[in-house]
């Protein structure tokens, strides 16, 4: 099976994960590809989902579903984009579908674990100013509306370029820039308000 491969893929920890994955893809079963993806990106996907849903067990369930979804969709993957980008798109869409679902809005009245964790972690070590500042920052970011939160997350947590962000979110690069700017303004306002009382 000959597949055209985009070589401008990601390099993680110095190892070009994609290329080594792809070189052998012809010989790899779909199960093995999913295994490899879980090995390489399981944690990153879980955190990405957590950023959307703010609940650990929901994020874990969704992440597992995402890999199953990937497996089912693998026969239709065109190898025109990188596997990682493709995985991220599925993860982002799946998370947003969940947020929009009737279930998420009506049934899951769970506590927001992200905020709980942030609270508890700084109450233990609150003598350190830096930690207080970290906690404030995370809280402010996680309280942003989804469309600003996701760009801030991808930019500052995952260190993505504008182009990559536009790619995984499937929106225009200029839209990414606008949302990033707006997101930072909102953050600044929020943090200043917090610090001034």
């Amino acid at each position, binding site marked *: 099976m000959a597949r055209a491969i985009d070589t401008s893929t990601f390099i993680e920890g110095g190892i070009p994960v994609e290329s080594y994955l792809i070189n052998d893809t012809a010989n790899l079963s779909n199960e093995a590809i999913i*295994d490899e993806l879980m*090995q390489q990106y399981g944690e990153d996907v879980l*955190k990405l989902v*957590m950023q959307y849903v703010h609940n650990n067990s929901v994020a874990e369930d969704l992440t597992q579903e995402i890999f*199953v979804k990937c497996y089912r969709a693998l026969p239709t993957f065109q190898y025109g984009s990188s596997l990682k980008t493709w995985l991220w798109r599925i993860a982002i869409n799946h998370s947003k579908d969940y947020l929009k679902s009737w279930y998420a809005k009506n049934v899951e009245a769970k506590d927001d674990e992200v905020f709980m964790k942030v609270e508890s972690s*700084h109450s233990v070590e609150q003598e350190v100013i830096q930690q207080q500042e*970290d*906690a404030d920052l995370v809280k402010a970011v996680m309280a942003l509306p989804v469309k600003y939160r996701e760009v801030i997350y991808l930019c500052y947590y995952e260190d993505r370029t504008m182009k990559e962000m536009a790619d995984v979110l499937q929106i225009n690069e200029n839209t990414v820039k606008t949302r990033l700017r707006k997101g930072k303004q909102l*953050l*600044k306002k929020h943090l200043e308000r917090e610090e001034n009382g």
Partner: protein
Amino acid sequence: MDDRLKNLKTAMDRTAFSGTKFTEQHKQHVQRQLNVDELKKMILSLLFEAKSGIEITQLLHVRGVQDVVNNEGMIYSILHEQENDGLVLASWNDGVKRYELTKAGKKQLQQEGHVKLTLKERLLGVRMHAE
């Protein structure tokens, strides 16, 4: 603002993401799910001609599908599910319940690319060569 955001990764790992781990258990859960998925497809691919549950089980045994060796009940629950989804049609004949692919079942199999049908097979709607 930019300077503070540069700290976001460390800050989040220390707070919001503490305890957020993709474990071996999660991995295994996905792998089990994939196996069930494979099994579902395999069962569908056997049903171009009507077969009873016992025949399906035997065929899967011959192929050495590990998941069903000690868990034959699984086959019936999958068949039941597929019947409900309209992918297979069950009919009683001489006291034996046989299952066969419906049009929707054939379509799904083809879409998954699991079984490549020749043009002739597609026209006739039958499978010419058993695997």
